[in-house]
């Protein structure tokens, strides 16, 4: 029978009647049919939403850019609502001239545009002891990938004149947590940006409006939002977020500190528990994302039989240093059960390890920096589940 979606005009009112004119949505919003594509949280994770995290819906996205409204949020004292008119950035410490910059001042420095991923060190942290959350949004969604426009921190430090005994900087936020992190000076001078735009528009309040620090490839906690101050010093400060938190407790009771660079990692976003196969056997598109804090991702391997046989996936889209990469693997699904995994190789030769390889070195108490290979089990109905395999 003919498809009424084609033959019946009454089912296609958009064809007959006029739609909204321009300006009906002065700031455009997604189609109402996409209203389920949202950041989500896991309420039991934290004591309070003010100091908490939510997750990017990776299973609903494609390409490599995360839309601004879907970038996961992590706050330690809620979203600070700064007035750009009274925004100030201070540089002090071991400098020739301590300085204050307004937003207008910052806009007069030369700018750069760079695409970088930001991954929270705790991404996949709930999975250290085994498969726990059902969906890549929850297991891998503390990440986003955005094009930043900003001023190299190097230029701003040069403006103040860094003294020769300087070796570290302290970045500080203006929020109610006054977030601080120590960053080695060579990183600050290398590729850090003082950014004010994301994907072309002003930073969103929840991403640090009007100004945040960009620390490419390194754990998200260091990318201080609502950046108000950079202090130059000769030693690290060892503040709360680099001692009590964001240190990796190993099985022997000792903890690694300053684990800055995010190891190479990947995840299959479709199919996945929130994105089952609904079309039955036949041509099937498997896709996912991969990234490395040490470089780019030239190669991702994919298995659909739990790691007996691997296939090199097809990379598609721009390949940038310390940016997210998109991969595809197209296959004909026979309708049988699948065990899906992806394995990222980065440009330094590092290969994403299995979860058991990580546990071998780090035990199960580490919490942070879990970049182990993720497994989804797909059943005959196309439903996917988070599992661990032998």
């Amino acid at each position, binding site marked *: 029978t003919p498809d009424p979606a084609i033959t019946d005009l009454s089912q296609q009112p958009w064809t007959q009647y006029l739609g909204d004119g321009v300006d009906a949505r002065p700031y455009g919003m997604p189609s109402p*049919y*996409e209203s389920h594509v949202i950041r989500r949280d*896991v309420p039991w*994770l*934290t*004591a*309070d939403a003010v100091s908490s995290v939510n997750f990017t819906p990776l299973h609903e996205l494609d390409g490599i850019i995360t839309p601004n409204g879907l970038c996961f949020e992590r706050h*330690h004292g809620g979203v600070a609502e700064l007035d750009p008119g009274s925004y100030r950035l*201070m540089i*002090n410490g071991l400098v020739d001239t*301590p*300085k204050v910059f307004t937003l207008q001042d910052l806009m007069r420095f030369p700018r750069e545009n760079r695409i970088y991923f930001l991954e929270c060190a*705790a991404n996949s*942290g*709930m999975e250290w002891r085994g*498969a*726990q*959350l059902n969906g890549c949004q929850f297991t891998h969604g503390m990440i986003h990938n955005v094009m930043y426009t900003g001023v190299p921190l190097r*230029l701003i430090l040069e*403006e103040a004149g860094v003294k*020769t005994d300087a*070796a570290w900087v302290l970045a500080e936020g203006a929020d109610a*947590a*006054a977030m601080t992190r120590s960053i*080695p000076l*060579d990183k600050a001078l290398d*590729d850090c940006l003082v950014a004010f735009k994301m994907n072309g528009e002003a930073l969103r309040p929840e991403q640090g409006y009007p100004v945040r620090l960009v620390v490419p490839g390194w754990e998200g906690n260091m990318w201080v939002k609502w950046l108000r101050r950079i202090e130059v010093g000769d*030693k*690290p400060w*060892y503040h*709360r977020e680099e001692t*009590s*938190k964001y*240190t990796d407790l190993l099985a022997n009771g000792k*903890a*690694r500190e*300053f684990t800055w660079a995010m190891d190479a990692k990947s995840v299959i976003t479709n199919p996945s*528990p929130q*994105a089952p196969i609904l079309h039955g056997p036949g041509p099937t598109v498997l896709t996912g994302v991969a990234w490395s804090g040490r*470089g*780019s991702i030239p*190669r991702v391997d994919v298995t659909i039989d*739990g*790691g007996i*046989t*691997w296939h090199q996936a097809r*990379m598609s889209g721009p390949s*940038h240093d310390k940016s997210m990469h998109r*991969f595809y693997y197209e296959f004909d699904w026979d309708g049988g059960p699948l065990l899906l995994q992806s394995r990222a190789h980065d440009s330094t030769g*590092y*290969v994403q390890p299995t979860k058991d*390889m990580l546990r071998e*070195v780090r035990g199960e*108490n580490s*919490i942070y920096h879990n970049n182990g290979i993720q497994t989804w089990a797909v059943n005959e*109905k*196309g439903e996917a*589940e988070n599992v*661990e395999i*032998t």
Partner: protein
Amino acid sequence: YVAANQMAHPRDGQFAAISAANAQEVTPQVAPQADDAAQAEAPAETAAADEAPQAQTQIAAAEPAAPSRDGGYGLGREAMPEEIAAWDIDIRPDGAGLPDGSGDVWTGEEVFVEKCAACHGDFGEAVGRWPQLAMGMGTLQSQDPVKTVGSYWPYLSTVWDYVHRAMPFGEAQSLSPDEVYAITAYLLYLNEMVEDDFVLSKETFADVTMPNADGFFMDDRETAEYGAFSAEACMENCKDSVEIAMHATVLDVTPDEPSDAPPESEMSESNDMTGSEADPAETEADAAPADGEAETQAAAEPAQAEAPVETAAADAGAAEAAPTEAPAAEAPATEAVAPAEPDPELAAAGERIFNRCKACHQVGEGATNRTGPELNGILDRPFASVEDFNYSTALTEAAAEGRVWTHEELSGFLADPRGYLKGTKMSFAGLRSQEDIDAVIAYMQSAGAP
């Protein structure tokens, strides 16, 4: 400027190696000369992945950096000493940055009980999922490490800095230096590191050694992991067979899908990517929005508060614990005549003021008890009437007298909680102006209307 190899580091050696490795990675080995950056980048974006992916990285990195200018750009102005003093509040392990002042253990207890105990407990044992601050010694190698100031934190300066910088939660930087010294001294006492006659000051600060000061080492992934994690990857016949060893659905701790489902669509079958069909566990779950949270509370029991990470502690065993029923959160049925509608403008002003209450209280649809009770229908609600909330004796005794949260009672309480109702657990200093009080009541009334 300081070159990378000049960098001093408290635990050098390992760091230098990592630093050098990083430097190599960010520097292209062969940077192609490109007259036009845009042209150089274009082929990279379209090249198929299997065609020299290394080249793509190098091309991307070859884009010229924003140029430095000799002597700088002459932008910004010099910071004044008063401005630096106002913002530069950081403290370092060697005590650099500590202000004058002092505080003893007993004063610390008083301040702590008043300003900190609502979340951290009188003895730093933690309330709910807020961070535990005391004890936990000897647990770092166990299945359930308890990371506290005493058991984990390597530097005392971090305690002083953080308490001063960010506490009390929701009222940051309100403590005087003496209060911070006193709270820090009390935390040392709770962790059995000092006697009860201890006085902490800039002078005695260096005498304290943290028990886990030697418990940290510099990132050694480069030597401990990189070799094993860069071996040739097997592609065929990599193992004989595969078994599933663990299922996430057994735990059932994944939040339910949002209740605001996408609008009905002709193409619903292919559009329905929300996964409700995909998760067998969810078919048994009640779809009510609040239930997801209530059910998983049980799973979260062992998870230490705050950082999401710590939830890794919610291990399999604990997560299997039977879910608890959601506490009934409905407003008590009162026969009272509904109060007049609040002024929307006033309510909007009150919403901002309510930010100061949000650390402990929720109001509005789906509000549940947190550190404080949920506040739906609070106006003209009887005292201490939220089921399942553990009120202070002061509140339950007032309730026994039949007291009701009238506008007048709320006003008195919000102006000075501890003065108005001696013994309340609410650690809030109070709102200064009646205008603010009226606004916040109007907000609670509008947001928490039944």
